[in-house]
């Protein structure tokens, strides 16, 4: 019984979510995924991990205002959110979610994902 599978299943149940994945920031590895299509995802995931690391480095350690929380990428029909999960091991994990902008209420979907995120590593 994998708790990560279960967590991603809950994220997938949110209306508007097409795919979800857990990405290890230090290595770019896809630790778990759901609904992901295409063989390019591992490379894309590694890029996302690099982006998160670079964003963190650009922000600098111990910044007023807090650490990196989320990176969003918007296209005309998709919203990709990568939420940084609070992880005391290594460099942390990203909860990547692929949202369909053509479905209703992306803002709501995004909030629901935000509420589910802290429980993923718990």
């Amino acid at each position: 019984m994998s708790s990560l599978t279960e967590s991603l299943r809950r994220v997938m149940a949110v209306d508007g979510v097409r795919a979800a994945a857990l990405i290890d920031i230090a290595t770019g590895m896809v630790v778990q995924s759901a609904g992901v299509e295409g063989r390019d995802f591992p490379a894309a995931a590694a890029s996302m991990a690099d982006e998160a690391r670079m964003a963190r480095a650009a922000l600098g350690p111990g910044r007023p205002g807090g650490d990196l929380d989320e990176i969003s990428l918007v296209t005309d029909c998709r919203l990709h959110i990568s939420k940084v999960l609070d992880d005391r091991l290594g460099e942390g994990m990203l909860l990547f979610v692929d949202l369909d902008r053509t479905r209703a209420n992306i803002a709501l979907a995004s909030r629901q994902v935000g509420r589910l995120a802290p429980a993923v590593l718990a």
Partner: protein
Amino acid sequence: MESEEGSVGPLREALMVCAAAGMSGTLRVTGDPGGAIHLTDGRVAAIETPGAPGPEVLLLRSHRVTEAGWDDAFAAAATSGGRMRAELVRRAMVGSGELEGLLRTALADAMFVLASGTVEEYRAEPGPVECALPLEPGAEPDGLLAEASRRIRVLAALPGRNDRGRLRVVAMPVPPGVRLGEGQDEILALADGRRSPRDLAFALGRGVYATMLLLVRMQQAGLLVPVSARAFAAAARTPGRTGSGGEPQDVGGLPQRQRDLPAPSRRLRAPGRLPERLMPLGLLRPRTGRDVSPGETS
């Protein structure tokens, strides 16, 4: 058909046979570093190899879990017949999802290390498997091998040398205004020119691949230099850290053995000086008369 990276081919061959048979047991891999792949119903539950830190080292060396906490959980699991994983989570020492993430990344790291090394032979040993933190259900061998291949390709595509596994690096002075993050300060403290990426990974409680990537970034930032005979000799002449003189040159192609490194300080003791702290122990009686110097038989 594309040729596979490193030793992925032989590993895939062996693991596919085990997977097809739904084997539970251990696949022993002889090679460098070699190791043992523990399987449950054809899926990978754990990998032990001298080449990569396992879950226990990752948790303890990173100080995510204390030694005392680990020992308590271990003892409790042993007496109750339960699982170490459940005990660690129950005692809130680590989150369930977090631990699963750790087990999965540790497996990927170990498989990467096996695949990057040499495989001479393998031997399947069906039977019960004893390990403290198995991944249950196990990981698909396919996925682990694909990830190992990806990592090998990423490293090969990075600029610079491709013998990174053997690379020793030494710390440079930190340029003013540079902020250190992501464990870089720990690496600088440990980078003494003796430690390979694998050694650093063990010392830090991080993955070998993650450590190698971090080392590449730190080299690019000028925080570390690869050890070469000339660079190290220059360092030995200059008090304190290297870098205050000319640029240490990276002599392309790190020597396979470190014979050409200058000898670390060796002290041949003057005869007659027995360390005084031994006296109270009463285990060694001070020699009277002459002492044996090296090379002599007494």
